[in-house]
């Protein structure tokens, strides 16, 4: 075809060099911050800053640090993928109901008293719940593979799991179980062991691997599903992979850490001013920034007793919600929703 350009005859113009140069240093910068925070997190205990002995380091701080990074990274990446796939700046793993069904699964374990007899039953219940929620979503996404219908299905799954959870709470066998369920639902990383890490890490890492590969498809989807299809992107498959990857990355996180909200929602919005709005450019950075955000929040939880007179540690999920909710209001005011 005439008019087809070759690189030789049409040299690329410099593409606004300063911001691009800045953008290239963001990923290494985030990785550096993450490394520092991982170290700090190993050194900081509940209200104390000191190098702990080996047992505490391995049994308490290491699992907590690893889980914060894994869960936060999974949530951040899930949020970036969902916002891109659904073209909705307010999309979040919680929106698809996967966090809700994971909570329901965990509550069932409490309800039948399985957690007392078999320690990993709790995260396993959460994982099973996340899988059920994801299964419902995928079955739906297979039939009507379009973004808005996926959101509606997620809202329905969310509402259903919330009402079943309320039922489980109202039928709770004893007040002790009720208190345990409630506390778990608030979300946190205290008293998690390396067994929890072993349970959560494989699904989270698998989910992350699935989600990180969706970049070009998400870029194409920013022009709408029809245009993406005309560009040769398998739209239904991309949405299904996004839902499955989210179920693994965010669902497994919710299974071990309870209901931690707003990380997936907030992280992409923090990164867009730095990296631009192209969905694929946000994916690796969201993974790192999610880990950084949750590690920071967990450090704040641990350091809070130094400043605030708290008898109990502040639940991590409560902290992220306290910080995240005003942020969402700010987004909603700033961005005209599509």
């Amino acid at each position: 075809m005439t008019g087809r350009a070759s690189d030789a005859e049409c040299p690329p113009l410099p593409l606004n060099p300063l911001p691009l140069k800045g953008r290239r240093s963001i990923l290494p910068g985030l990785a550096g911050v993450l490394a520092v925070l991982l170290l700090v997190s190993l050194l900081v205990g509940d209200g104390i800053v000191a190098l702990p002995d080996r047992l505490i380091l391995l049994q308490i701080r290491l699992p907590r640090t690893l889980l914060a990074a894994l869960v936060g990274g999974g949530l951040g990446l899930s949020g970036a993928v969902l916002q891109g796939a659904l073209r909705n700046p307010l999309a979040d793993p919680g929106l698809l109901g996967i966090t809700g069904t994971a909570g329901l699964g965990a509550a069932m374990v409490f309800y039948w008293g399985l957690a007392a007899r078999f320690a990993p039953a709790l995260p396993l219940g959460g994982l099973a719940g996340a899988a059920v929620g994801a299964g419902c979503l995928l079955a739906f996404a297979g039939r009507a593979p379009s973004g808005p219908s996926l959101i509606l299905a997620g809202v329905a799954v969310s509402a259903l799991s919330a009402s079943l959870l309320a039922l489980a709470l109202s039928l709770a066998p004893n007040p002790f179980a009720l208190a345990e369920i409630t506390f778990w639902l608030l979300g946190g990383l205290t008293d998690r062991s390396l067994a929890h890490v072993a349970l959560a890490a494989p699904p989270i890492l698998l989910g992350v691997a699935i989600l990180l590969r969706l970049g070009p498809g998400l870029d194409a989807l920013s022009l709408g599903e029809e245009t993406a299809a005309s560009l040769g992107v398998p739209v239904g498959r991309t949405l299904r992979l996004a839902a499955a990857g989210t179920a693994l990355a965010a669902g497994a996180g919710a299974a071990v850490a309870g209901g931690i909200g707003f990380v997936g929602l907030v992280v992409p919005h923090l990164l867009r001013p730095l990296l631009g709005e192209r969905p694929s450019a946000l994916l690796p950075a969201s993974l790192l920034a999610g880990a950084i955000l949750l590690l920071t929040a967990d450090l704040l939880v641990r350091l809070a007793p130094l400043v605030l007179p708290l008898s109990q540690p502040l639940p991590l999920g409560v902290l992220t919600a306290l910080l995240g909710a005003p942020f969402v209001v700010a987004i909603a005011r700033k961005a005209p929703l599509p």
Partner: protein
Amino acid sequence: MNRDKASLGCAESDRGGTPHPQPPLRGDPVRDAGEVFRLACPTISLHNRPVLHDIALAVRPGELVAVCGPNGAGKSTLLRALAGLLPGTPPRDPRRVAYLPQGARCAWGLTVAQVAALGRIPHRDSAQAPVTHALQRCGILALRDRRVDRISGGEARRAMLARVFATEPDLFLLDEPTADLDPAAAQAIMDLMRDTAKAGCAVVIVQHAIDLAIRCADRMIVLQSGRIAADLPAREALPAAAAAFGLPFGLDPEPRLLPRDDRLVPP
């Protein structure tokens, strides 16, 4: 159903001998080597409801085809069927067929250059030259680093068009690319597509502005109630198009804007 080589169908039309409205450029290898895109479907359904009936058409390289017809006649569906996006229609190679839907917009604040670069997704490369070339052709090279949601509507439309050009397709399918543009901008886009067709590409444009379509297109397909009511050289298509809309037609004695290039004014 599938694409045939030009040698099978380019020389003569398979739609009842519709002559090529412009004399083909003799000895132009591009025009002779191109590929004819065909669509032949007894019915095309949308959401289980038949929308188009008895569709059989071929689009030749070097041809600018305008699709006209009343709202709901099935113009957009015809374009989607040509793009191979509907069930039952032949799938197209996304590297060779580019489709611009009606009212295309970008969900995020990508830069103009990033939007155009999306056109390289079918090729799975990040070649800069076709993107720069596309921006140049669409006249928005200077806007390349501006956010596509912070420029004017006409400029954003050009950015969407640049995405189509960046794919370097053989067949352009554009659904109302000039809707809600000012007359000069609409004429500029139609001129651009004219030149693209002259360079040997096949171009199909859904166009509501009949006068613009008649001035710029080689051929006009008039759709009415899901059927092809007429498939004629554009200059002869006014009576059929007017009949489809149920409007009278004739010479307009009122003063009106003329295109800059008076060669394009119909006789």
